[in-house]
């Protein structure tokens, strides 16, 4: 058990970390794992005290969010509401107020849950993750950061220092939708984020990602390819979302939902979001 207070201390203790070490931030995931006996860690690094990682600040060309920023911090930040609107929307739906006060951005990234509510939004917002260690620092896109089911490319000695969100194009339209059935405190069954521009009647820069439909957060690249540069029509959007739900999603049946429901809902929700953002009437 180590409880560093500064980034420097954190990097020093992490330098000796092995793969069995667990990094504790706000505890909303890890404490459940401990309690249910799924994890019996020997080595835990409690990062909660590294207050310098709790910030939201403007940076050249975008916004930098410290990894220990909580969902509540994001909601309370005028900068975040302005520069990462979709992320704030998603942060508001992560859980109850009690959870939002502890759940952190870095914890969310590091846990790499396929059901992460923040995940699809970070992907659509082109977020980049800054990893630091005594060896140096590097920045990777979130799409590359997640490598599989609850897996990331963070090395044992690295710390998720922050996330950079580049400034969104001025005319970009964005949407987010979480489907959890229960309206609060739910783990998502399907979560979708979408961004696009409409330029002279043509769709540009379509970006979309979804959670809870595969072993990790996935980009809906089939949909993006099908729509980019096209004039939107109901038929086109229907076809694109259908293809995407068939190709990009790899959902499973589990205790919360069915693969069929996840796939169908991904298609229906994505279709509605696109029609809505593109200004086309009524999804169904």
């Amino acid at each position: 058990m180590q409880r560093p207070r500064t980034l420097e201390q954190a990097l020093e203790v992490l330098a000796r970390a092995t793969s069995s070490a667990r990094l504790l931030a706000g505890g909303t995931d890890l404490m459940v794992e401990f309690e249910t006996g799924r994890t019996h860690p020997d080595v835990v690094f409690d990062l909660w005290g590294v207050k310098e990682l709790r910030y939201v600040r403007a940076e050249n060309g975008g916004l930098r969010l410290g990894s220990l920023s909580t969902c509540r911090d994001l909601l309370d930040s005028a900068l975040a509401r302005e520069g990462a609107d979709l992320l704030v929307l998603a942060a508001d739906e992560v859980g109850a107020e009690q959870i939002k006060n502890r759940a952190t951005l870095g914890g969310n990234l590091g846990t790499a849950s396929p059901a992460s509510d923040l995940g699809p939004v970070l992907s659509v917002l082109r977020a980049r993750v800054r990893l630091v260690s005594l060896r140096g620092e590097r920045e990777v896109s979130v799409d590359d950061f997640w490598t599989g089911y609850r897996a990331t490319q963070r090395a044992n000695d690295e710390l998720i220092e922050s996330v950079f969100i580049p400034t969104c194009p001025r005319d970009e339209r964005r949407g987010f939708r979480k489907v959890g059935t229960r309206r609060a405190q739910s783990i998502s069954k399907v979560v979708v984020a979408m961004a696009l521009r409409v330029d002279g009647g043509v769709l540009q820069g379509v970006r979309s990602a979804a959670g809870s439909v595969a072993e990790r957060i996935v980009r809906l690249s089939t949909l993006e390819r099908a729509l980019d540069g096209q004039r939107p029509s109901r038929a086109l959007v229907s076809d694109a979302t259908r293809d995407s739900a068939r190709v990009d999603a790899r959902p499973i049946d589990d205790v919360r939902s069915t693969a069929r429901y996840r796939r169908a809902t991904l298609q229906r929700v994505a279709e509605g979001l696109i029609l809505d953002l593109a200004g086309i009437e009524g999804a169904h």
Partner: protein
Amino acid sequence: MNRSVGGVLARPEGPAKVTGRALYVADLRVEGAWVAGTVRSNVARGRLLGFDFDPAFDWKRVVIAGPEAIPGANLVAMIVDDQPLLCADAIEHFGEPLLIVAAETPLTLRAALAAIRPRIEVRPAMLDMEASEQLFKRIAIDKGDVEAVFAAADGAAIRVLEGTYRTDTQEQMYIEPQGFVAWPPDANGTIAVTGSMQCPYYVQKSLMRAFGVEAHNARVVQAATGGGFGGKEDYPSVLACHAALMARVCGRPIRMLYDRHEDLAVTPKRHPSRVRHRTAVASDGRLLAMDIDVLLDGGAYTTLSPVVLSRACIHAAGAYRCENVRIRGRAVATNHVPFGAFRGFGAPQVCFAVERQMDRIAVALGLHPVELRLCNMLRRGDVTATGQVLEHSVGSVEVMDEILARTKIDRHPWRAQQTGNVRRGLGLAFFFHGAGFTGSGEALLKARVAVELDREGCVIVRSASTEFGQGTLTMFTAIVAQALGCDARDVIIADADTQGVPNSGPTVASRTCMIVGGSLQKACAELLVRVGPGPAPFRERARAFVQRGGDSQIEITYTSPPGLAWDDATYRGDAYPAYGWAADVAEVEVSLDSFEVRVKRFTSAVDVGKAIQPQMVEGQIEGGSLQAIGFAHLEAATMKHGQFQQNRMATCVIPTTLDTPTFDVALIEVPFEHGPFGAKGVGELPMDGGAPAIASAIEDALGIHMDHMPATPERLLEAWLAAHPKEEL
């Protein structure tokens, strides 16, 4: 003017609850206590061969008790003696208790439990109630001649409509998990337990059988209890015996507290059901014959299934008039964890079925659902399926008038064509629920309640009826204060302790107010006569009465109202002394992209006879309705390989504030002359109507007839795709 009844009294236990001072079982500090846990089967069916104890664990740190340590009978005393306290051989369900283990600390206990592996020869399990041929109970109710009507059906003047309806299980989800503390036998050989429970005398009966002791040597005290809803009716008998057994073996107090996961995995839930309806109906909507087949999955042991089936069958024809009725009911055995009591007790399942069948009939005949109900609803003087003539306190017309006035659902074009992503719907359910035990139950039980005065002239009420949120203490206080004309602060309700209160029967079946409260009113009437009239306040007269040596001890044994007759052999007669009547209207929105249902508004008109404490009655109706709303569309609850799948609170979801509609509750009071101040029961009633009202509203919104509860988004999607195959991916 005393306004205790019909007014607002403070909850006697309220200050302790809002300050956190109320002591629930987990809050009790017990000197020298060890903690105990349970080794369980990890298969649905098999034969226990033995146990592997990990040699790496230091077994001297724990105490282990198996079935051979039980001094009396190895069984859970309930209706039928078929359930062992600890399984010795044949395993009948997942999570069946095999051994009890005790340790000084929770950490040691957890390690010990992980180090014991039962060796089990797995056997094929019966997990399909429709395939099971092993019966716990069969019930037949016959009225008139259904076959003659069906034979005359011509498809025009008389049509026959069929439907099959299913409900999944449902978890009670009291927020306080089950728990007990037990003490080893004292010098007199008395075993004592305290815990979270509804029925102290049920627990006592179990202890007496398991330990071979007399009643005075089995003391049961209820701790503050954090919700029950039926879930703490029968299971506490199991847990209390386990804890008491270990206390006896260890010779020290034992705390046995389930965590949420264990509670969800092994405690009883609502019976899954399959109900078939075949109905002959005249072209004007009159019900001519109802043929109803009720099937309940009882799980591995009998527990309460016979009585759940009884209530289910009696309510199966709904609150409707029909000359020819045939009801056949079966509760069958499977290798599921035993299903048990949950608010409604069989009625929510059959109410869902009959109300859906009424909607199906309405669609077939082109009638508005309201019109069909108005045409057939039981009114005063009508005869129920069991042949009971409804003469007393029949509020059917009143609740229907009120619900129509408030919602105007009769003028709403049901199943009208809609467009757009969000579809809206209104749905009605009309229903009744018998108050008190079924048939001769109360006559056989002879529930007792006692009052006496203390030296200060305060009234002490002794009853085994427990408080677990519903407001028992406040309701009793109001009845006593009103009956005696005394100040509510001068009423003292004794603790539910089997050494201090008589057996008032279990706190179940919407019987506490009408049955026990009724006896309490009688006891007070006699006390008032003894104390005598006078200008002084009651307490002063009472104090003087006690000081002059007056005998204030009065015990009343319940007797059924005159004229009630019930034949258990034929299931004919007066099934209940009185019924609560109600109508619910649900207003929903359904999103066509996610098939999530949002209940916007929920209106109830409920005839409770008399609302002893209106604020609490509303609280019962709102709370029960929300449980029904959860049952209708949210609370997915599934069994797989004999295991309850939603075994964490993160997956076993119940509604939050944001899933809650605006409630509009109308209390209707059609007094019942044999209830206290006219009161009937209210506890279970609001659980019955929510599911069918919401299913009806969903049908209004989507044009889809859902016949399986809960109507989860997954099920709604499948039903929608079946009706709109072009939308299939």
